[in-house]
């Protein structure tokens, strides 16, 4: 099967910002995320012949990016949290929502980022993360409920 050079380049040009924004949440900021995404696409380009085509090309590149990001990211949750706080989510933009996002368990939070920053479908999130679509749906439902409640609470307090 394999993927063509053009397909990978097209994916990169179309989706680079989404990749960088999502990866920034696990790599600790925009600059390290940029490095991870460049490396991920470089690796995908080199290994394009090995793409088996049993899922989408985008999900395959997401998996490569996650592998690189998780190997490079601090494993300590506290460190990830501090990087998130300092380097990516700017609380002054939307303090209540940022706080609500930070209160989500890590896995739930990442699925939210993939859905809303990465604009991935349930199927693509499942493929990228190696979890079932049902788990994606349940995780997103819980996360949405938490985040909407935070927004709702903020509205009620005003």
């Amino acid at each position, binding site marked *: 099967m394999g993927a063509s050079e053009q397909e990978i*380049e097209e994916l*990169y*040009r179309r989706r*680079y*910002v989404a990749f*960088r*924004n999502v990866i*920034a949440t*696990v790599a600790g900021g*925009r600059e390290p995320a*940029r490095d991870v995404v*460049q*490396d991920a*696409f*470089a*690796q995908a*380009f*080199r*290994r394009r012949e090995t793409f088996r085509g049993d899922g989408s090309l985008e999900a395959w590149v997401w998996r490569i990016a*996650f*592998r690189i990001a*998780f*190997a490079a990211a601090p*494993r*300590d*949750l*506290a460190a990830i*949290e*501090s990087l998130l706080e300092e380097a*990516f*989510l*700017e609380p002054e*933009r*939307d303090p209540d*929502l*940022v*706080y609500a996002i*930070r*209160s*989500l*368990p*890590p*896995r739930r939070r*990442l699925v*939210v980022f993939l859905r*809303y*920053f990465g604009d991935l479908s349930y199927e693509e999130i499942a493929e990228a*993360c*190696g*979890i079932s679509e049902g788990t994606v749906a349940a995780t997103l*439902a819980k996360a*949405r*409920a*938490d*985040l*909407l*409640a935070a*927004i*709702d609470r903020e509205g009620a307090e005003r």
Partner: protein
Amino acid sequence: MTRHGDSLLAERLSALEDPRDDSDWEDVLRRALEQPLERSRRFRGRRALLIAAAIAVLMLALGVALAATLGGFSGWLSGKPGSPASPTEQSAFQQANARSWAAFPTGTKLRRLIVTRSEGSTYRLFGFRSGDEICLRLTVDGADRGALMSCIPRLELVKAKAPAAVALVDAPAGKARYELTGRRIGGSRQRVRIRSGLVSFGVTADGVSIVELLYGRHRGRARVANNAFLYIRSNHPYAGVTIDRISAGESGNHLTAVPFAGRPYEPFTSHPSMNVPFGPSRVDLNPPLRSIEWIRHHEPRGLSLAQAHIPRSSLYGAHSYGINFARVIQPDPRNHVRVVMTQVGRRNALCENWIVGARAVTGGCFGFENGRLFSAGYAIPGGEESGAVSGIANDAVARLDIFLNDGERWPVPLKDNAYVILVPRILLPAKLVAYDAQNRVIGIQTLPGI
């Protein structure tokens, strides 16, 4: 949830996105084409090794400087922090210890470290040293009645790089009780609150007077006394809001971050980190197939199940296959963890059970006939910061070392083919390396991070 709610959320979240496009396809091509795959891998491996070694040297220097400033952990390594427990407190411990399947030596003396009250309950933190373990025991009287125990390996404190070592984080004190709270929104919105207090405790270096903990928007200070700290979250904390930062130091000085693993965590379990930059990466020799001769001949080594007060029915394989032979081995007689080695079923499969808590048993069965040298598992009762790396090795293995992710190498107690060592989760992933009698590397197994 309504479609309106979803689009509102999408709109608010999109405002947080960084729209800047700094893409550079030429850079991707350079990265892809300038370095062939294999060379790139080797280069990265070497670079990772160099970086890791440099970090280890830096951390060691920093740790030494820090230890010198704060006096190290001499209170725990060579002293006796706190005061002797009262006869009643000592007697309660001895009774609980006698009931345990993994008891400490009978002469173990408790030291009282911290006593405090919170929401109608009295919390008493005790400590003691036993072999290569520094153990803390928390008892709670009142509404949250119960007891918790957690141990830290002594070696963690010898070359400690932080001014405190965490034993347990966010554990429910006594019996955990939960309640649903909050408003219901669209029939799906309620939060879980923990009605029992959540406790975190550990040991501190000499001179430490402040231990600060952060969780959610809150910042709290632990009780610090007698080279220990204890923090109680007793205001009905929400489940999911966990402690995410701990720092410690002297009053008036900058606080230093204390590493801890927290609850077992992995964003996507399909990608556990296996990168251990230290230790041997290849074996010197593939030894011939070996078994464990003393088990084959049913030699009565260690203790019988009856002598160790362990019911046969609690062991792995007891119900499905039947146990033909079982012995309880204590690889390090000064430590409390035991390994039960059994032969089960008609084919006499070799099984192991690790006993790491008062009643905690886990295990599995495997065979050496396919060339395996040793089994390896990791048990964390109650989400403790340190867990027992344990297993059994065949007769070809003369000794085992564990290479931790900070560059330290610890010898692993091995006796009668059973081994066990307490390892902090922050030092995983790690490599378990087996040597033969001629000191040649004959087996390597990587233990993933948890």
